[in-house]
C-alpha cells in the first residue's frame, strides 16, 4: 500500500515536470509551428543559473534569476536563430534547433566543465501520507504544475493576447493581415515556454540535486514524447501526456524485472499511440476539405 502510494505520487510529480516541459514544446509548436529541440537545454541552463545564484543562499532569488535568464535566453535564441528562418522549410528550422541544442550543451561544458555540479536548492523534507513517506517537493511540483496549466489555459482562452495567439496558430498570414504583430506573438510564446523550462529545471534539482550539461537532453525528449502522445499543440494534451509518461516511468522503475527497460517502454507507448491515434489523445484532427 505504502509503495503504491509513494510510486503514485512520484509518478505524478515526475509527470508534472514532463508536463511543464511539454507545455513549452506544445505552445511553441502550436504557435510558431516549429519543434524547438533546444527547449530541453534551456532547462539545463536554468539549472546552472540556479547553481550559480544559489551562492546568494536565497532559493527565491535563485529561482527568479533563473526564470528571467531563461526567458532572455529563449527570446534571444528565437531572434537570432529562428526568426531569420521564418518561411524557410521546416527541416531547416529543425536542424537549426538541433544545432542550438548542441551549442548550449557545449557552452555549458566549456564554462562549467563536464563533471556534474551538486546543488541543493531547498530541502522541503518528507511527510507521512497514509503510512507512506513522501517527498514534499514532489507534492509542490505537482501543485505548481496544475496551477500553471490552469493559468495558461485561462490566459489563452480569456485574454486578448491569448486570442491573438490562437489566431496566429490557426493562420499566421491571415492573422497578420488582421493587424496582429506575429513576430511579437511568437516572441511572447518563446518567453512563456522558456519560463516554464526554468521552473522545470528547478523541479529537476529538487528531485535530483545535480546539474550537468546533458541535464535537459533526456527530459527534453521525454517531454516531447509526452507532447506528441497528448496531441502536440494541445495544452491539456501536454499535461495528460506528461502525467501518463511520468506514471509509466515511476511504476516501471519499481518493478525489478522491467526497470532496465523503462525508457524503451515509454518510447514504445509513443509508437503504439501514434499508430492508433496519429494526432495524439487530444490533438486536432486535420480535416481536408475537397
Amino acid at each position: 500500500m505504502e509503495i503504491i502510494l509513494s510510486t503514485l505520487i512520484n509518478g505524478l510529480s515526475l509527470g508534472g515536470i514532463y508536463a511543464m516541459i511539454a507545455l513549452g514544446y506544445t505552445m511553441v509548436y502550436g504557435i510558431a509551428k516549429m519543434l524547438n529541440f533546444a527547449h530541453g537545454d534551456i532547462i539545463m541552463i536554468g539549472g546552472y543559473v540556479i547553481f550559480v545564484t544559489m551562492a546568494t543562499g536565497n532559493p527565491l532569488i535563485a529561482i527568479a534569476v533563473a526564470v528571467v535568464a531563461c526567458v532572455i535566453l529563449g527570446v534571444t535564441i528565437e531572434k537570432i536563430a529562428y526568426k531569420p528562418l521564418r518561411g524557410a522549410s521546416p527541416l531547416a528550422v529543425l536542424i537549426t534547433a538541433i544545432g542550438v541544442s548542441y551549442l548550449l550543451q557545449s557552452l555549458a561544458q566549456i564554462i562549467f566543465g563536464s563533471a556534474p555540479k551538486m546543488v541543493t536548492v531547498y530541502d522541503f523534507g518528507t511527510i507521512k501520507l497514509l503510512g507512506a513517506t513522501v517527498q514534499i517537493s514532489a507534492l509542490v511540483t505537482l501543485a505548481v504544475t496544475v496551477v500553471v496549466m490552469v493559468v495558461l489555459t485561462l490566459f489563452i482562452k480569456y485574454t486578448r493576447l491569448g486570442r491573438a495567439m490562437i489566431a496566429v496558430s490557426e493562420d499566421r498570414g491571415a492573422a497578420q493581415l488582421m493587424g496582429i504583430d506575429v513576430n511579437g506573438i511568437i516572441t511572447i510564446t518563446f518567453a512563456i515556454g522558456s519560463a516554464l523550462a526554468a521552473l522545470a529545471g528547478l523541479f529537476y534539482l529538487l528531485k535530483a540535486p545535480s546539474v550537468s550539461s546533458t541535464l535537459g537532453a533526456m527530459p527534453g525528449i521525454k517531454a516531447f514524447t509526452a507532447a506528441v502522445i497528448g496531441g502536440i499543440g494541445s495544452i491539456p494534451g501536454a499535461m495528460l501526456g506528461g502525467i501518463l509518461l511520468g506514471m509509466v516511468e515511476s511504476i516501471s522503475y519499481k518493478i525489478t524485472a522491467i526497470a532496465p527497460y523503462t525508457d524503451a517502454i515509454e518510447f514504445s507507448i509513443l509508437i503504439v499511440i501514434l499508430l492508433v491515434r496519429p494526432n495524439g489523445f487530444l490533438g486536432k484532427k486535420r480535416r481536408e476539405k475537397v
Partner: protein
Amino acid sequence: MSEYILETKDLGISFGGLKAAQNVDIKIRKRQIYGLIGPNGAGKTTIFNLLTCVYKPTTGTFYLDGQEMKGLTPDKINQRGIARTFQNIRLFNNMTVVRNVMVGLQHRPEYKCSVFESIFRLPRHFKVEKAMREKAKELLRIFDLEQERNALACNLPYGKQRKLEIARALATDPKLLLLDEPAAGMNPHETEDLARTIRKIRDEFDMTILLIEHDMSFVSGLCDEVTVLNFGTILAQGDTKTALADPEVIKAYIGG
C-alpha cells in the same frame, strides 16, 4: 486628405525572371467600388499581395490616402487601413464566428486594453470585451450571421464563410477593403445578394472597395471603374462599360 484613397505608381514585382506585375498605376477615389479583372494568372492576387505588403515590390510604390505604404509589415498595413479577404477562404476555423470578428476588432484604438489589464481582469478588460462583443454582433447582423455567432467558423456553409471573412476584414476598420473573388463558388442568387451587401458596406461605412472578380456580369453591375490586367500589365482602365468593350480586353479573355 488626398484626392485618391489608393494610388499606385509604377508598381511592379518580378519573381526571378518572371514579371508578375509591372507598371501598374491605379487610382481609386473614396467610396468607389473598383474592379481588378483579367484572365487567370494575370497578376491580380499579386497586386493584392503587394498592396498588403505580403510581397515587396521590385519597382514603384503606393499611397493610401496620400501616405506612402511601401515597406511596412502586413500587420502595420492593416492598422493603417487596408484590410482584405482571400481567394481561398482563410478564417480562424476553430474559433467561433464572433471571436473571428473580435480578432479583427481588437487592434482598433478604441478597444485598446493593456496586457496588464487583460491578465489581471481589471474592470476595463470586461468593459472592452463587452463593447467588442456588441460591435461584433452589430457587424454580423449586417451579414446575416448573427444567429450563427457561436458556431465554429469551419462549420459554416461556404457562402457564409465568405461573408464572415468580409465581416472580419471590416472589423479592422479599414479605409480600403480588398475583396479577392468574393463571388467565387456562389450561385446567381447568392451573387446578387453579395452585390447588395457590398453596396451596403460602401454606403454604411463610407467604404472604398477594390475587388478581384471573374464574373463579368457581377463586375459590370457593381463596379464604377475597372483595371484590366493581362500578363502583369494594364490592358485597359477606366469606366467599366468602356473598358469591358475594349477589343483588346475581349481578345485577352476569349483568346484569338
